[in-house]
């Protein structure tokens, strides 16, 4: 008897993600939650522009692309037309916290009844490791060769903390995937976000601290350690609202 099979909602194909990339983990966690809740057939997901642009090749449920950053606006359109479906967006640092800042804030402000999975790995992976709004001070990236300095490059962006003041936002939690315990925690948080939506309780978002071994210039194991020891100091884990 086979146990611990891959989730039904996940297609049985190899992914293009780098070794140790958080996307593989988070995709699987989302699929496990969808299987557990039995909602695969009513899920409509919105994929971002970023490393996860090909998410629709891995998820076995209806998925649409979106222009970079407009993901929450696309989700708004879908959810307003199909209010009884499970509609979620999956977005990276650039998609959500740079080009899409307006869309995510206003989607939360309108209390749109959708779920957002925000993958925070502190860089722009797909385009070659440039600075993201979430890059830490002192971090070297393709566009911060002198490391990130506040005067020239601003500060690490805390979109979740900013959105906590919006009355339309119901639930915000930050988790990570750097250990089995954290993986389970992320699954619990994503499940809570989906349940918030299914119970029509408003907008929710889970920010998952994720590794980018390639552009952090370290092994997957060291990248997970970096999250545990360094990243969480800037982006503390836990429930931010709700």
């Amino acid at each position: 008897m086979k146990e611990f099979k891959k989730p039904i909602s996940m297609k049985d194909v190899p992914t293009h993600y780098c070794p140790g990339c958080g996307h593989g983990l988070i995709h699987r966690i989302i699929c496990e939650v969808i299987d557990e809740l039995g909602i695969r057939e009513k899920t409509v997901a919105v994929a971002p522009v970023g490393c996860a642009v090909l998410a629709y090749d891995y998820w076995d449920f209806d998925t649409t692309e979106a222009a970079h950053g407009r993901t929450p606006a696309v989700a708004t359109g879908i959810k307003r037309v199909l209010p009884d479906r499970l509609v979620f967006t999956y977005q990276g640092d650039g998609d959500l916290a740079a080009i899409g800042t307006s869309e995510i804030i206003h989607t939360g402000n309108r209390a749109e009844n959708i779920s957002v999975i925000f993958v925070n790995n502190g860089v722009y992976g797909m385009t070659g490791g440039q600075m993201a709004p979430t890059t830490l001070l002192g971090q070297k990236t393709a566009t911060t060769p002198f490391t990130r300095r506040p005067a020239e490059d601003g500060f690490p962006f805390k979109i979740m903390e900013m959105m906590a003041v919006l009355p339309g936002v119901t639930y915000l939690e930050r988790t990570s995937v750097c250990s089995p315990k954290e993986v389970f925690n992320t699954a619990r948080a994503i499940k809570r976000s989906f349940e918030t939506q299914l119970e029509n309780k408003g907008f929710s978002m889970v920010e998952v601290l994720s590794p980018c071994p390639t552009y952090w210039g370290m092994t997957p194991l060291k990248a997970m350690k970096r999250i545990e020891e360094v990243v969480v100091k800037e982006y503390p884990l836990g429930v931010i609202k709700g």
Partner: protein
Amino acid sequence: MKEIKYLSTGNEACGEAAVRAGCAFYAGYPITPQNELTAYMSLRMGQEGRTFIQAESELAAINMVFGASVAGARAMTTSSSPGISLKQEGISYLAGCELPAVIVNVVRGGPGLGNISPSQSDYFQATKGGGHGDYHIIVLAPASVQEMFDFTYDAFPLADKYRIPVMVLTDGMLGQMMEPLQFDENIKPPQEIEKPWALRGASGRDARAVKSLMLGVGKGSLEEHNEKLQAKYRQIAASEVRVEMYRTDDAEQVIVAYGATSRIGRSCVDRLRGEGIKVGLVRPVTLWPFPYDEIRSLADKNASFLVVEMSAGQMVEDVRLAVQDDKRVSFYGRMGGGIPMEEDIMSRL
């Protein structure tokens, strides 16, 4: 059939038509000179229990329309020139993903912030792209409040039929002026069609994706997709051209004008005909697909053409393409919100 008739602005006529055509989702952002339209939609969509969102930007609005269209709904957004510039990315995505949508541009003076007077300087943007990539959208150009209603009503089934964005290209004058509007009080929305490509949840079927990203080669490649799009555009060009030929049968000189300018052109034709001068008017109703053949047929009869636009001259290039003889095509235009006067047009004929 019970006709109702009332005095309406073009903007509100457009909005009423969208509601009557079964528009289920509207997202817009305030911008002059189409604010009456957005406000009207907020009232009427609410009355009908449908979705109205005043989006945070024109960018967000076109992308909300993208989402509503992905989910299979009839969706519309409206704006004016600078806002339509913002929407270009979204329009390219709609075209690439083959999603139906209706976009209304109530054109104002440009470039940049410009002014709020009527203009026709977005012709290139509407018909030659505006957004990136090889695509076209159908462009309808009303010339009256009644046509603001009729063409908007037609835009929805046209968009659904061809899975293409349809733009109603109008201007601030048509949008804000008032004229009698009439339609059947019990008018029904155009028949909804099956949308097997829509995403509503993978129940009882395989999961689907809506996307315009195609990275492979050969089968399923972007080149193949583009060939499919081009074939669609050729089919539309062969069957959906709409043009009005007014008193052109024996015309030696032909005014070519669309929208509000065509009304001024029509007056010029009538006045000059009254003096025995053989002038006619070609009024393109679809700006894309453009009535090249109809204009060419007049060129073959040795007519000469005066193209009149509220711009520096944009449609004139398509007329030149049709006529293939630059000596016989001249242009008169007013820019930056200026409106051509009959005397100035007639003096050039």
